[in-house]
């Protein structure tokens, strides 16, 4: 499991990429990725291209990010999710909270 983050050139977009298992072990790193920042981004992207697995605590972490980013006003995209990961997100109906592709 590894969490990396990238800011866009104008520092308005923050992309957090997760590789390996996205579960409770990623908790601190994932939080640090959006809490320990010098600029407050307006948009967030969670890139799951290299995420192999996602459990319910990962769903909880996504909710924490959403809360941090402004709750109902948050703009968060979840991209590159595999079909297995999409299934998990679909069962929980997270498409009602996140822009999932």
């Amino acid at each position, binding site marked *: 499991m590894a969490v990396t983050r990238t800011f866009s050139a104008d520092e308005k977009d923050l992309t957090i990429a997760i590789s390996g298992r996205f579960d409770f072990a990623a908790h601190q790193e994932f939080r640090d990725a959006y809490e320990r920042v010098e600029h407050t981004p307006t948009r967030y992207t969670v890139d799951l291209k290299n995420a192999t697995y996602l459990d319910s605590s990962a769903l*909880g*972490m996504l909710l*924490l990010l959403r809360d941090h980013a402004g709750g*109902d006003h948050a703009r968060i995209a979840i991209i590159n999710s595999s079909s297995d990961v999409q299934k998990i997100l679909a*069962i*929980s*109906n*997270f498409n009602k909270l996140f822009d999932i592709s």
Partner: protein
Amino acid sequence: MNMSTEVAQGPLTVLIADDNMTDRMLLSSIVRRQGHSVITAGDGLEAVRVFAEQRPQLVLLDAMMPVMDGFAAAREIKRLAGEALVPIIFLTSLSEEQALVRCLEAGGDDFLAKPYNQVILAAKIKAMDRLRRLQATVLEQRDQIARHHGYLLNEQRVAKAVFDQVAHSGCLDSPNIRYLQSPYALFNGDLLLAAFTPAGDMHVLLGDFTGHGLPAAVGAMPLAEVFYGMTAKGYGLQETLREMNAKLKRILPVDMFCCATLLSLSFQRGIVEVWSGGMPEGYLLRGDSGERVPLVSRHLPLGVLSPARFEDRTDVWPLAVGDRVLLLTDGVIEATNADEELFGVERLLAALGERNAQGEVFDSVLSALSAFRGEYRDDFSMAELAMVQPDYLKPPALIYSDSGQSSPLDWSSSFEFRAETLKRFNPLPFLMHMLQEIHGLRPQSGALYSVLAELYSNALEHGVLGLDSELKRDARGFAQYYEQRNTRLTQLDEGYVRLHLHVRREGEGGRLVIRVEDSGRGFDARKALATPARERGLSGRGIHLIRQLSQNASWADDGRSAQVEFAWEQQG
């Protein structure tokens, strides 16, 4: 770290056993000069006795002694020391390998050749003391872990006992329910509850909190409290769901939520109402056709959305006797075997195809799981519910705490519920609460509740919302009907349901007259009552139920006004 005095560094008490008095005194003075206190013995037997009495922390032992030699003494001292490490350094002028090996085999930790080298002796005592303290720390921590583990198990046992009382205060033991939950499912975050409504419907909740252990268990109590409280008062699924969601949203941290399926089985009306958020598909299994209807999660889990954004829309399906509903947590599908394969939906569906003589799939799923894994870990929950005849189950009688001396027996009351209220408010629990003050009515409260519920939903659905009962003739129309109901209710901006209650004394007993009026177009009650059940399909059950359960049921004003009566012979 908090260490016992045993572990603390400092001067040691050292036992020196040597039959040669000169050697003994020489060694004693060396060791004393290094800051330790010394006790002495002249032979092996005395060494063992002194050790037992004074428990020195380190032993210097001459190998060759009269009465009992050093080897035998070492074994005895090690035995007395038990788990604690009491280092033994053999003092020996022996030099052949075999003799030195014997020293270690007897339990010695090191040896020191005569004549003594003070620097080496000091270094060895220090090194042995380090080992001794390490061993003591390890033992201390092991005991601490064991103690904490004991506490934890006890706390879990108590929490489970309390929780079992709560969980089993419902009706999980009803003959139409089969379920499996691991003894510590609570600590996996799983929750299975069932309870009867006053009308005899059965509400069932299968929930799965995020995470494991105590954090996953804390939400269970408040959820159970809302579930039982509101079910017993006669609230419907939607009000109960809104309340559960609001409560969890309020008390749980942002990253915690509860995936849940909540359903209501109505044995009298032959329907099941389902809400599912974040749970894997459950299944409605048709008894006659073998058809399998997936119960899909349409919502976010409980505790995620604010009360204002929460979606309480339910799906409604017709149910016939012999139909079954299977609910499960993701532990079933995510069960893995030794090769790290998932059990998966395919295997589950294959198992659902194999029903036993009673039409049950419960055992089939369990044996598929155990064939898949060898033996299944019990970190999942599963429940199978059967649709049965209404009189097959005996909901427990309600218990009332008041004496009945102040039963009100001569009053009338009227209510008008208008569009804005009809959208979200369920007046039935409130009305029932009031009617239960009449003790004579209490033995009939199940029938009273059912009739009141039917009258109200007829007035709302066929009257105010103008829904056509004919739609419910077949399963597809049935689904359409409830979709239209949702849509029209959301858009409702005018209309009313009026309820008139009239209570009067009659001899020793009394009589309640209920009249319900609505703002709708009315319907042909006579025709509806005359249609035989075979032609009605799934429609028109309501007014037959009303006729069966109440007295003098009649319709007036082209069906816009319905009236029923309940009489009782004497005070309850």
